[in-house]
Structures are given as structure tokens and as C-alpha cells.
């Protein structure tokens, strides 16, 4: 199998008092009935809700009124269905006779199925997979297994349901059980229990079934009770992981608080901050009830160190040396992404990468392909849309220390967040680091920007003109450069159209290509700034987030965002390049202001009136630049 690299190992340390279960099945496989029965028969449903399930009947139900229709117990969300509210994942609890708590995550959505399943599987230990015996194994079953495997669920309990409707046919069960096992094996899921059940009749759910004397395995409840986390090898370095969430300060106490996500730590253990490499020794460890002599995985811990070293929220405390193995800081990673936003992935756009308490800007540089969840094949892809699972490469602005997802679900995972809307656009699982931050040491040249600027007798800066096509950006840039040149200043203009005939001639006008266009122009402007020049950029750059990314490359004061604010009617009338006419005729689908929107700057450094006097505009800009 190529798509799933490996599965989390650290899960093995989790306390088994709480088992997190994902329930998956297609509509009408009997998932609600099975979960309802598990809840009711373990005493997890209040009497008034049982009464409701005795009285109420929904279309299609064959359960006689007066008996509990178990499928109604997990329902309660009908009202929301009717109001058009989407239910993403519902969580329910039950206690097994052993005292083990089971938290069931149920992802009923249809449209957003992959996304919701990914959410529910991200914390799951075990998947309960429904197979409808009257329908057999379908593409859905494989899709569920693919997502479970990707997200690191290592144990599958498959319930072959509705066997009552097939005369409790032993041969049929064996056939389906074989089918489930071979499908699971394709995704490297080895721990599979296949149980013949009738959710409706309660056979092999809580108690065994006299109707299937040929079956000798556990019931669903029995399998949940017997579950033990699979044995795992320890991480590369066997070290502990404590991501710092919060710094606790009291009189002369300075403690670093977080949840231990791998390994154990004790007073006296050597410790290092992954990334900075600052080292010390653990002085004390506090658990929820005060000082302890050891903190284990999943425990909240607050540690104090023997030395005063720099530790901040987002830092990862671990066992030295953190410079070997996966925790060596890197700026490029290969990862799987589950895309969760309506807006597709924009190649080259900067997102925020959240890894536990750490936040860094990151860019997806390459899309290697996306997974066809039904076939398990990797398909070529230019972008990722909602519910797509992709394999990508991404780079971060600064080096970060991440594990492989196969090593740790906590320190090997991340979220991607849109910089403007702040929506979560993707969940990421690290496959492996690509480029070690330490391998690229920028060389410090003796002749630097300051020296170059001094020689030219000027302060270098970037003036970024943004606005609708026809707003007057090129005209202003041209007039401004002539004026600056005549004043003896060294300048350069990066004009959108001119750049597109060379450096960016491989790019089109889709939002992704526009993002990449802006990124390249911004990087070029940065080089020219470093060369000591006054750089004028004339670029439509219609998207706020792209301009923010451009700005983020520069120090405050070096970059001036200037909005050339010209009424859209004026631009369309001027139409210097005949673009508006063509767009109106439908010949340019992505034309800004016609087919695509222009996002006005919210807080530009400067605003000039593109319909006003050119002379005044140039005078104003000169005064801001020199």
C-alpha cells in the first residue's frame, strides 16, 4: 500500500479506561440501531428518551409501536436536519460492565463525509464498521477503511448486520468476513474482528445469539471490553514530548505547563528545547494534585527547570539530543492533507500552520497527488478541494520540530488555517521532514543592504500599487519613476504585465496562479530592496491574503501598500488594454472586476485617487518615499 505510510505508535500509551470509537456505515446499514442498542442496554439512555423511542415512529420503521425503536435514540438531530443545520460529528458515551468508558464519535454527514470521518477518526482507537449483509461490501466500506488507516486507527470491529434478513446464513457471513479482511489488509489494517449481528434483534450485540450457533467469537460489547491497544515500538529516540501550552508564574516559581504526549518524564531528567537546543535538567514535576515523581503520557504536567533558559508557549520540551531523528528542526515537510474548507488550496498561498500550541506561516509548495478514496489509487492533482486527501510538500517560514504522524498523533499532526478568515482549511499528517533547517545557513555578506543604500545615497523601499485593471497603476508607476530618476535616485519598476511575459510566463489567472504570481513578484521586490533600490510594483493583486503575504516578507516601514482607488466605471471606460471589452464579451473568464472580485485593502498604508491629478499623486508619493 502506498497511500498510508504507517500508523501512530504512541497510541499504545493511552490509558485504556477510556476507549474512543468511531462508528462508520452508509445510510441505512443499521448504524443508529446498533449504537442505540449499545447505549440502551448498557443503561446509558434516560427513561424519558426510551419512552420517546417507544412512542415515536418514523417512516419506514418496522418496529411495532410500544417496543423501543433503537434507531431513534441517537436521533434527536432530526430537528436540525429539517432546519438545514449540518451535523458534523456527534459524540455519545457509554460505560461497559468493566467500567471502561466508550466515547462514540458518529459522523453522519453525507456531503462532507470524508472531512467528518477524518475528524472522528483523528482521536479514535477503534472503528466500528457496519456492513449490511443484504447489500454486501461496497465502495463505501473501502472508503471508510482508507480514512481509518490514514488517520491511524489500528483496530476495526466490523459488524455484519441484518443477518436476520438473510436467514442467519453462515456461508454469507464467511464470504463477507473474508471480503472485509482483504479490504482491510489493502490498507494495512491487521487487527480486524468480524462479528455477525442483527442490530434489530440484538443478536451478538450485547449477548450471544442462539440463532447463530456456528459463531464462537465475541459480541460487539465483548470486543469493546476486550480491546487492548496494539503493542508499539517506541519512537526513534524514546524520548518524552511536552509541548508547552502555558507558563505558570508564582512568586519564585516558573513552570512550563502542558500535556505529556509521549514518553515519561521525571525530576532529574535531562531536557532540551527542540529547535533552539537550549538544554537543562528537570527540577520538579507537578501533576494535577501537586508534585509527582513521574508524569506519563496524556497527563497534565507542569515542570520547572534547573537553569533559566528561554522557553515559550509553543516550544517542545523533549529528551536530548533533539538534533537527531525527526525532531531536528526542518523548514520543509512531506505531509498528507485532508482539505476541509470550501475554498480550494491555493498553490503558493501562505497559511498559518498550527502544531499544538505552535503557530508558524507555511506555504504548500507542491501537490504530489490526491487519493481516490474508493480505489486507493493516487491521482494527479493541481489543487485540493473540500474532502480531498492529498499528498503535498510544504515549507514553513521558520524551522519547526515535528514528529512523523506514524510516531505521534500529537506532535506529528498540524492544522492549516486561512490567514484572513481564520477558518481551518486542512488537517495535516507529517510523513517526513524534507529539508533540515540547519542545512541552509544564509551566508552573511559583508556588503549588505545598508552599505548598498549608503553608496546610492538613498533609503531603499518597496511601494506596492494595487487596484483594478485600468486604475492607473502603470501610468502612476511610470510618472513616479521618471520623477525619482530625475532626482538622481536609483529605482526599478516591476509591472504585472511585463513580469508575466518573462519570470511568470507559466502562470495563468486562476486564484492559485495569482497567488504564485504575487509571491514571485514579492520575492523579486525583496531582492531589489536588498540591492538598495526604490522598487515600485504595479500589480492588480486582487486578493487581500496574497498582499498580506507579500507584506509579511518585509520589515515594517520597508513596504508601503498603496491602493490606487479608481471607480470601477472609470476603469471600464478607460479600458487602456481593451480588457473590459473582451471580458464583457466573455473572452476573459477570470478578469478582475468582471469575473473575479477585487478585495479592497482594509488598512492600506496609502490611498491615491486614480481619477485625480497625476501630478498631485506623484508629488504625494515622492514625499512619502524620500
Amino acid at each position: 500500500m502506498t497511500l498510508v505510510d504507517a500508523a501512530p505508535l504512541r497510541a499504545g500509551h493511552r490509558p485504556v479506561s477510556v476507549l474512543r470509537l468511531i462508528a462508520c456505515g452508509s445510510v441505512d446499514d443499521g448504524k443508529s440501531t446498533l449504537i442505540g442498542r449499545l447505549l440502551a442496554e448498557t443503561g446509558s439512555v434516560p427513561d424519558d428518551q426510551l419512552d420517546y423511542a417507544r412512542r415515536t415512529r418514523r417512516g419506514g420503521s418496522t418496529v411495532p409501536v410500544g417496543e423501543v425503536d433503537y434507531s431513534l435514540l441517537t436521533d434527536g438531530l432530526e430537528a436540525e436536519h429539517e432546519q438545514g443545520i449540518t451535523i458534523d460529528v456527534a459524540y455519545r458515551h457509554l460505560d461497559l460492565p468493566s467500567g471502561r468508558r466508550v466515547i462514540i464519535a458518529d459522523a453522519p454527514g453525507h456531503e462532507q463525509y470524508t472531512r467528518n470521518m477524518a475528524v472522528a477518526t483523528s482521536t479514535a482507537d477503534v472503528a466500528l464498521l457496519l456492513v449490511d449483509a443484504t447489500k454486501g461490501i461496497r465502495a463505501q466500506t473501502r472508503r471508510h477503511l482508507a480514512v481509518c488507516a490514514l488517520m491511524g486507527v489500528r483496530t476495526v470491529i466490523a459488524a455484519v448486520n441484518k443477518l436476520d434478513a438473510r436467514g442467519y446464513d453462515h456461508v454469507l457471513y464467511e464470504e463477507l468476513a473474508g471480503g472485509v479482511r482483504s479490504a482491510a489488509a489493502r490498507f494495512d489494517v491487521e487487527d480486524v474482528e468480524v462479528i455477525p449481528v442483527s442490530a434489530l434483534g440484538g443478536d451478538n450485540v450485547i449477548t450471544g445469539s442462539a440463532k447463530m450457533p456456528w459463531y464462537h467469537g465475541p459480541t460487539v460489547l465483548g470486543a469493546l471490553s476486550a480491546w487492548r491497544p496494539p503493542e508499539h515500538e517506541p519512537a526513534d529516540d524514546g524520548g518524552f514530548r511536552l509541548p508547552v501550552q502555558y507558563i505558570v508564574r508564582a512568586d519564585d516559581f516558573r513552570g512550563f505547563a502542558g500535556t505529556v504526549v509521549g514518553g515519561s518524564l521525571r525530576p532529574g531528567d535531562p531536557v532540551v528545547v527542540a529547535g533552539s537546543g537550549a538544554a537543562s535538567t528537570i527540577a520538579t514535576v507537578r501533576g494535577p494534585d501537586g508534585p509527582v515523581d513521574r508524569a506519563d503520557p496524556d497527563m497534565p504536567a507542569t515542570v520547572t527547570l534547573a537553569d533559566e533558559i528561554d522557553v515559550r508557549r509553543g516550544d517542545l520540551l523533549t529528551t536530548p539530543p533533539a538534533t537527531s531523528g525527526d525532531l531536528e528542526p526542518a523548514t520543509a515537510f512531506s505531509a498528507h492533507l485532508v482539505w476541509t474548507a470550501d475554498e480550494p488550496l491555493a498553490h503558493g498561498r501562505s497559511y498559518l500552520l498550527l502544531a499544538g500550541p505552535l503557530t508558524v506561516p507555511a506555504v504548500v509548495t507542491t501537490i504530489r497527488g490526491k487519493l481516490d478514496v474508493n480505489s486507493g489509487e493516487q491521482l494527479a492533482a493541481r489543487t485540493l478541494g473540500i474532502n480531498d486527501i492529498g499528498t503535498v510538500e510544504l515549507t514553513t517560514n521558520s524551522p519547526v520540530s515535528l514528529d512523523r504522524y506514524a510516531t505521534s498523533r500529537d506532535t506529528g499532526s498540524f492544522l492549516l488555517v486561512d490567514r484572513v478568515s481564520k477558518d481551518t482549511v486542512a488537517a495535516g499528517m507529517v510523513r517526513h521532514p524534507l529539508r533540515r533547517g540547519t542545512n541552509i545557513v544564509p551566508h552573511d555578506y559583508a556588503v549588505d543592504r545598508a552599505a548598498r543604500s549608503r553608496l546610492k545615497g538613498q533609503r531603499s523601499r518597496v511601494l506596492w500599487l494595487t487596484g483594478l485593471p485600468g486604475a492607473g497603476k502603470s501610468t502612476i508607476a511610470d510618472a513616479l519613476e521618471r520623477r525619482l530618476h530625475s532626482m538622481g535616485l536609483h529605482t526599478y519598476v516591476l509591472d504585472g504585465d511585463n513580469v508575466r511575459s518573462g519570470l511568470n510566463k507559466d502562470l495563468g489567472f486562476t486564484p492559485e496562479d495569482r497567488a504564485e504570481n504575487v509571491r514571485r513578484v514579492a520575492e523579486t521586490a525583496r531582492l531589489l530592496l536588498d540591492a538598495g533600490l526604490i522598487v515600485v510594483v504595479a500589480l492588480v493583486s486582487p486578493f487581500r491574503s496574497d498582499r498580506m503575504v507579500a507584506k509579511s516578507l518585509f520589515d515594517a516601514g520597508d513596504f508601503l501598500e498603496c491602493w490606487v482607488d479608481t471607480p470601477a466605471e472609470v476603469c471600464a471606460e478607460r479600458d487602456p488594454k481593451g480588457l473590459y471589452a473582451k471580458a464583457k464579451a466573455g473572452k476573459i473568464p477570470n478578469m478582475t472586476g468582471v469575473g473575479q472580485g477585487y478585495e479592497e485593502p482594509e488598512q492600506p498604508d496609502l490611498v491615491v485617487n486614480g481619477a485625480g491629478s497625476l501630478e498631485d499623486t506623484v508629488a504625494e508619493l515622492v514625499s512619502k518615499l524620500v
Partner: protein
Amino acid sequence: MPVEAEEAIAPEAVLDVLEAEAIHVLREVAGAFRRPVLLYSIGKDSSVLLHLAIKAFAPGPVPFPVLHIDTKWKFREMIDFRDATARRLGIDLRVHTNEDGRAEGVTPFTHGSHEYTRIMKTVALRQALDAAGFDAAIGGARRDEERSRAKERMFSLREPGHRWEPRKQRPEFWRSANTELAEGQTMRVFPLSNWTELDVWRYIKREAIPVVPLYFAKPRPVVERDGALIMVDDDRYPLHEGERPEERLVRFRTLGCYPLTAAVESKAETLDELIDEMRADRRSERAGRLIDGEGGKSMESKKTEGYF
């Protein structure tokens, strides 16, 4: 899959996992948001939340204030307990009342329980959050309180104006939360999402957390309204002609505004008795809240308006 003999799991072990999860969430809120606040309703869930906050940041102080929305119709014992708790723990307690609503004479009797709740609780909460610029509000809601809460996020995003927008809710992966906020957005956070009512009581017992005595059975003056037992806590309660409150042995499963909170007949005078009674009594917790039933309004629509 390895099948082994079942071994019993102590309820303690489950509580440890739930405690760890809640502490993780509380620390994340304190680390990630500019101005968090803990919403304190004086009930058992709030008492647990406050206790967890103290544990999460010990030996340092709880790094956020505690806010109580006072409708002025709470049980008197609740207010006494609130003030005693603030003194005992030395926390930064803020109390807010919707004075406009009070000036307009809004009561549960004049405006109906739904409208009263909207003005004195929902609007009041918005006023208090806006005035202080709180960007994250921690609450004690649990997923087991009502079936429709099963899908609730731990980090529930609110749009400007505190609107709950179902489409904007963020997927929650692993134990990571996206705590980034766009302009005007705020967050409601529920660290006890995965706790059950019984977990709360077991934890209260294990940690010896003080709770309002109203949770325990005692003879109290009650009247019966539409089958619900209402405790007459002061002389503002409008009695019918010739009606006299009678003393009955009752306790409360949830606490709120006294005219809207039904008592249950019970003999449970201690925590152990209460936990035993809970195991036997199998009704939904919110069955005793009068506002949930009124006018067919679902929890959902109240939440859209900003009810906690």
C-alpha cells in the same frame, strides 16, 4: 485482536482522563486568547470548572476572571454560596445584571420564561462580554445534557454579535484547537464536553468540592405548577388565591432562576445518597428546566441567539 480476560476499571481512572482533557483545554485557552473569562453559574458544573482551573494553573493564580450573570431571580442560597466561594478562593469575581431589563420590569411572570431568559441571561451575557472585550468564554456545558448537544464542539465559534453560525464551526481534530479569531469573532469553550452528570458528581465527591446545599434534600416550601414543584424562595412569587406553600422533602438537579427551576422529591441528603439516587433515577437532567420546554423552542434556536 488480542482477547484477554476483562479487568475492572476503576471509575477513578475515567475521571483522571476527563480531568486531563479539561485541564488541557483550560491551559490552551489561557495561552491562546487575549482576554478569556470563565462563566460561573454557581451550579455543580461551574464549581467543577473552577476547581479544574485552580488545578490547571497551580501554584500560580487562575489567569482569568470569573463572571456571573445575575438575573436577580436566583435562589438566595446560590448568591450566598457565590460570594463565599469568591472569598474562599480569592478569585476575581465579576457580576453583571442587565439593568435595562430590570428597569423595564422584566420578570419570569410578566414576560414569559423564554423572553425573560433572552433578556436577562442572553442579552445580559452579551453586554458583559462586549463591555470587557472578552474574546473567549469558558462554560460548563456537557454533551450528555440533551440529545441535541451531542454534536457540540469544544471550541464553539461566535461571529460578530455573538451569532452562532453552524456553517462556520470548525472541524476539531486530535487535541488541537484552531484558536485564531478573525475581526469580531469570539470563542465559547466547553472543557467538560465529554463528562456525564454522574462523572460530575463523582468528581465532586473525589475532590471534596463544595456545592450549593440546594442539591441536597431538605424540607423546603414548594407549590405545584403544571406538575412541577417550585420552591417559593421569597415573597415575589405570585401565589394563587388561597394557595399556601407546603413543606416537602425536595432537592434540585440543576440550578437556575428559582421560579423556573423544578425541584424533585428526594431523600438524598448526602453525596453518597445523591449518587445512588442518580444511578436509579433515569430521567434526563434538563427535564427539570422549565425554559427548555416552552413554545417548542429548541436549544438550537436559543443558541443561535447567544444563550449559553
